[in-house]
């Protein structure tokens, strides 16, 4: 690829990404009342999309062969348990990550 082709490729990615971010706001601009169902979506979707995002971060976890997703499962349980107990974001993430690192590096 020539330099100019690289610049065009990146520009296309940038513009398409901005398009995905602005589209909903352009279709339903403020001031113009959005249909009631769209307002309902605005309240229902954040929770379900967030649930989906959690799954998204585990999409490449191997579960059918060694190590059967065990390090991931253990680290998740520790993160969740610690967070319910202490409610400290940094602590929960740090301990969960350290446990995960120790497991994947030594198992």
């Amino acid at each position, binding site marked *: *690829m*020539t330099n100019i082709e690289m610049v065009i490729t990146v520009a296309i990615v940038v513009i398409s990404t901005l398009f*995905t971010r602005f589209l909903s706001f352009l279709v339903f601009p403020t001031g113009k009342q*959005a249909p009631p169902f769209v307002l309902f979506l605005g309240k229902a979707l*954040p929770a379900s999309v967030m649930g989906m*995002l959690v799954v998204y971060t585990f999409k490449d976890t191997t579960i059918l062969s060694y190590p059967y997703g065990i390090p991931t499962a253990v680290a998740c349980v520790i993160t969740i348990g610690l967070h319910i107990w202490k409610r400290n*974001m940094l602590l929960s993430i740090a301990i969960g990550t350290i446990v995960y690192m120790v497991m994947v590096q030594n198992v």
Partner: protein
Amino acid sequence: MSTVNKGRHAFSYALPIALPIGVSFFFIGLGFGLYATSQGFPWWVPMVLAMTIFAGSMEFVTIGMLMAGFDPVTAFMLTLFVNGRHIFYGLSMLQKYTNMGWKWFPTVAWMCDESFAINATTKLPDDVDAGWFYFHISWLNYAAWAVSTLVGGLFGNLLANYDLRGVEFVLPGLFIVIFLEMLLNSKSNTIRFFGISGAVMAIVMLLLFGSSTFMLLSMTCMLVACYIAYTWGGVRLD
């Protein structure tokens, strides 16, 4: 409160919330910088991609595309495919990203997974200005990502001496904690139900259709499920 004070007050509220994201961005940004330079790109390329595209997984994909032949149509389709989820973030934030003035444009332009997650789920006290909070979270995440990819591009190779396998858990860890906070803080069980069903639906789609298409499929099913719940189930949220 004056505008300056509102901004400062929202900043002091936003900073500690953005901190865990900054930490996880730092490790991922190092990884991205190292990856790009290891493919033969100069040190500034990862940062430029980070600051222009600002969508993590798409930046990795772009490095791959830059090494293949010139194909603008594929670049366009692939971006829509990978980043289509932003459309749903937008739908979720329609009523939150309003009356923000000049802060609206950067906040929407920098609507990445993490900024969306925080801004969609954080329960703000009455004295914190929501518009300023959303904007601070968005630019803090943007800045953290830009700096991390720069450091990764310059010094990523020094990391080769350390065994950092497993450090990628910071991102799932972050999302788990945000999701938990949302479940624990939400006002209604209906919202909790929507959260849990979103996760379950995504797991089912992932197992059935694999990792490349499950996001768009789950989101489409969510739309249909919401429509059914709203029109025939009479479900309402205040």
